[in-house]
Every structure is written in structure tokens, then in C-alpha cells.
């Protein structure tokens, strides 16, 4: 009954039009970035650049110090990778023991993690800031990694528990019979089987950390560890109307995840739809 009919065709055309309009900001972004400063301001946003130029890109890459996009990208990379690795290791271990040893403790711990997902972390930010400051970790990579790992641990544990629940014990039992220790069993047998969950955790948490502005602004402003969003923010704040430069910086800051998304879009969409849902 759900066949392709005239109505479907109309719906299809309408949705393609909607998508076209929704994509206009992207067109404007890339189009303007390749104009020179003067043309970016004066010409129509939809008109193609008369003399495409990389002026904006070279200007935005020429910045140094805490305005340097490259330093910002490097800091973002260190903090994101460090946090995601910890979220995967610590989260999967915790989720595994919670599911494999059901009982009162397991129920309590699971509730602890689940409640923390709903609990907004904003209020805790001030004490975390003060705590990290007293440890001398404000404005450092380590401080940020600890904070993000803690902030996103409930999400990681939640995603892993959902997956471990569906995992049969046969492989683990076989490994036990072969005399493997529990940890060796986990490392060699269980963890590889958790692959799909690890993928979802990696995508969701790296995206959240890479794009996070509020906490990195609070914790990193003026430090050497400034992440990309903070760099873009302070960089743009100084430029008035140099839209080609601003847009070049915006493009450079979003390229990594845009490319990552285009190559792994199915996994991204599944991660968001399934991860959040389950």
C-alpha cells in the first residue's frame, strides 16, 4: 500500500526544496569565505566570488599565540582524545561489572549513573572550577580531561550497559575454562565484542567535547590550552566585518567533524537516534 504515488512525488519535491533552503547557510558560508573582505561585504551573499581567493584562509591561519587556530585545534585534539579514551576504558569496565554482577549494589550504581544523566552539571561547574583551581589544574589539558571524563561518564556507562546486556556469556565462559583471568577475558574477549557500543560512545562524546564552548570558555580563557571554540570566539571578537576571514576560521574549525560525519554518517545518525533513545 505504501507505493510511490503522485502524492509521494509532490512530497518528495517539497522535501528537497526544504532541504535546499536549509542548506543555504552552508552555501553562504563557503561562498563568502572565498571572497575578499570588500566583496564579502558588498556583494550579494548568493553571488559567486568574482575572483575566488584564499585571502580569508591565510589571514585566519596567520594568527599566533592564543588566537592561533592551529594551536586551538591541537589543544582540542589532545583534550578530546584523552577524554574519549578514558571514557571508553573506565566506562566499559564499570558497565561490564554492573551488568555481570546483578544485585543490590549493581542496581544502586546504575541508578547513580542514570540520575546523573538528567542532573544538569551546570551548578557543579563552579565547585569543580574551584576544586581544579586548588589543584592547579585550571587551564591545563589534564584538568579538562578529568572534567570531561567525569561529566560524560554517565552517558558512557549508560550506552555500554545497554550493549553488555545483549551480550551472551558463552565467549567469556569459554575463556574462563581456558584459564584466562577475568581482566584478560575482558581485555581480549569482551572489549572487542563491545565494538559497536565503543563506536557510539566515541562519536557522541568526542562531538560533545570538541564542540563544547561554555566549559572551555570558563576553564581555559587566557590559558595556553585554549580549545578551538574559545579561539574562534576570541578571534572573531576582534574582527569587525571581515566576514571572509571569520568564515574561513569557521570552516577550518568545523571541517574535521564535517568530514568525519560525511564518511561515517550512518554511524553518527544511529548513534544519536539509538544512543539517546535506548
Amino acid at each position, binding site marked *: 500500500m505504501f507505493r510511490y504515488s503522485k502524492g509521494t512525488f509532490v512530497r*518528495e519535491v517539497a*522535501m528537497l526544496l526544504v532541504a535546499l533552503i536549509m*542548506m543555504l547557510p552552508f552555501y*553562504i558560508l563557503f561562498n563568502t569565505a572565498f571572497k575578499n573582505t570588500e566583496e564579502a561585504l558588498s556583494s550579494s*551573499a548568493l553571488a559567486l566570488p568574482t575572483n575566488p581567493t584564499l585571502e580569508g584562509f591565510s589571514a585566519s591561519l596567520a594568527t599566533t599565540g592564543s588566537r592561533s587556530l592551529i594551536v586551538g585545534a591541537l589543544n582540542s585534539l589532545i583534550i578530546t582524545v584523552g577524554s574519549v579514551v578514558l571514557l571508553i576504558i573506565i566506562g566499559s569496565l564499570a558497565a561490564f561489572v554492573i551488568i555481570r554482577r546483578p544485585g543490590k549494589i549493581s542496581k544502586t550504581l546504575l541508578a547513580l549513573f542514570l540520575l546523573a544523566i538528567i542532573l*544538569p552539571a551546570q551548578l557543579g561547574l563552579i565547585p569543580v572550577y574551584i576544586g581544579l583551581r586548588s589543584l592547579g589544574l585550571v587551564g591545563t589539558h589534564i584538568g579538562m580531561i578529568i572534567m570531561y571524563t567525569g561529566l560524560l561518564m554517565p552517558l558512557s556507562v549508560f550506552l555500554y550497559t545497554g550493549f553488555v546486556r545483549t551480550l551472551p556469556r558463552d565467549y567469556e565462559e569459554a575463556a574462563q575454562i581456558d584459564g584466562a*583471568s577475568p581482566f584478560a577475558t575482558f581485555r581480549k574477549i569482551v572489549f572487542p565484542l563491545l565494538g559497536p557500543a565503543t563506536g557510539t560512545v566515541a562519536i557522541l562524546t568526542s562531538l560533545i567535547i570538541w564542540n563544547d564552548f*561554555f566549559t572551555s570558555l570558563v576553564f581555559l580563557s587566557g590559558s595556553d590550552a585554549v580549545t578551538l571554540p574559545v579561539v574562534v570566539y576570541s578571534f572573531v571578537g576582534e574582527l569587525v566585518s571581515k566576514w571572509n576571514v571569520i568564515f574561513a576560521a569557521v570552516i577550518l574549525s568545523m571541517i574535521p567533524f564535517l568530514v568525519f560525519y560525511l564518511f561515517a554518517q550512518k554511524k553518527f*545518525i544511529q548513534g544519536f537516534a539509538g544512543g539517546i533513545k535506548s
Partner: protein
Amino acid sequence: MSTTSAKTGPVSETEPAGTGSGRPARRLPNRDSRYASWWWAVPAVALVIAIHYAAIAAGSIYAFTDYKGLGSFKFVGLDNFAKIFSGGASMKALINTLIIAFVFLIATNGIGLAFALALNRTLRSRHFLRVILFAPVVLSPLAVSYIWKFIFQQKGPLNEFLASIGLESWQQTWLGDPQVVLISILLVMVWQNVGLTMVIYLAGLANVPEDLEEAAALDGAGVWKRFTSVTLPILRPTIVVASTLILVQGLRVFDQVQALTGGGPYGASETLATQVYKETFVNGRYGYGAALSLVMTVLILVFALLQMGLLRGKKDD
């Protein structure tokens, strides 16, 4: 830490009960301890307690003090809250936050659901459209806001477009007019997030059995009737998830406001989060900032629980 914790598991289990180690033999060994040790959960639990629970508890205490971020502080009772609700910039921010969160909730879920229904099943380009419409979700809200800042300029693309289709009267100073600025910010937020709700609803729609819809159609149910009596009930848990997610995002909105207007013009677009940022980390009024945070936290908790209760409750109809 994991190497030491790995040992604690097997010790009690691999040794036959009662031999060596001097430990009391366990009569009924918990067979599950062969698989994992509780020590494995310690790092995760410690982090969650420190960064979530202890921090939120400490934050709630600061909310009742005049803490400046350094040195000592004294308790000031409800002074901070009295100041928030007395009608100044913070009160304005609170109202703005509620307006933004509510409109964001309705618009993003409504449009996202509409897109999902339109894309579901029959469209040939549905996979392509899904990828395209979801793309803004993976971008940083900050970066997205700068694109729109350009679009919203006085002589920018949006006003230019309105003029070209003869709607000069619709032209606005999108970010400079206190009457319009919230709409502009909402436009950016909705644009970036409809792809997210759409994808969540598409996943929910996949649970609607096709033959159930066909049966309803054979019974003479029209499109709308089929939607309300077949699709919607099955979709209810999905609606809870999507709307809670969006509502919480709306109540915490910061990036877009900070990038588009910085809270201006004249505080017309301040939100709780921008106020928390300014009061705490710019003005150094930690106690007051914590009180604002507490208001936001309570709002988020109350609304999230209310929403779950509301939509769950309706199930019994």
C-alpha cells in the same frame, strides 16, 4: 589501576575454597565474580560522585553565600534568590530562558516530527535527505551562530532576500531589536536541531508496524486518524525522549546567545546561562552565580520530571 584490580577478582574464586590465603571459605561463591571485580567500577563511580554529586551539592551550598571565589564567605540566607526574583537583569534572563525553551521545544519537535513523517518509508531520496538535514547537528553551535550573524546583518542575506520577494515590510534589525532578537536566536537553534529530532522520530517511526497502518487504512481511517490513533500512541516514548532532550538544551542555551548578541541589545536576550557566566566568571560573584545556576537546575529537573510524568501518564488513556 586496572592491573591491580584485575587480581582481586580471581583470588577468591580460582583458589579452591578454604585453601591457602587464610580467608574464610565462601560456601556459596557468587559465580559472577568470576567475570568481573567490583574494583573495575571504582574509577567511574569516583568520577561521577566528584564531578556530579559532590560538585552539585557544593554548588547548592554556595548559592546561599556571598562567596567571591577567593577567601572566606558567609551565609546570606535567601538574599541571592531575593535579588534574582526582584526584577532586574536576572529576572529578565529567567523569563527569556523560559520563552526560548518553550518555543524551542514546540518548534523543534513539531518540525522534526513533520520531517520524519515526510521522509518515512516511501521517499526515494530519504537517505540523502536524512544525511543532509542532520548535518547541522554535528557542527558547533558557536560556529553555526557566526554564519547566522552574517545572515542577520542589517544589509545581510535575510533582509536582501525579503526585499527580493517584495516583503520589505518584514525586514528587521534581527539582532538589534529587543522585540525580535529572541526570534532570531530561536531561528538559529531550531535550524540546527530539527535534524536531531527528525532522526529520533524516524527511529521511533520504525517501530510502527506497517500492517497495523494498513489495517487501519482498510478500516477506512484517513491519514490524520491513522496518525492520531496508530502512530502517535506508539511514538509516545520517543516524544518523551526528544522533547526532554530539547527542553533541557533550551533551558541551558548559552553558545548561540553569546555569539550572536552577547545578551544584548540592552539585556534583551540575556539567558540564565549567560547571566551565570557573567556574574560568576566575569564579575566574580560566585555565590550569586551559584544561586542562578541552582534556579536553572531546579527548572531543568522539574520540567524534565514533569514531562516524563505527563507523557507517561497519558499512556493509560
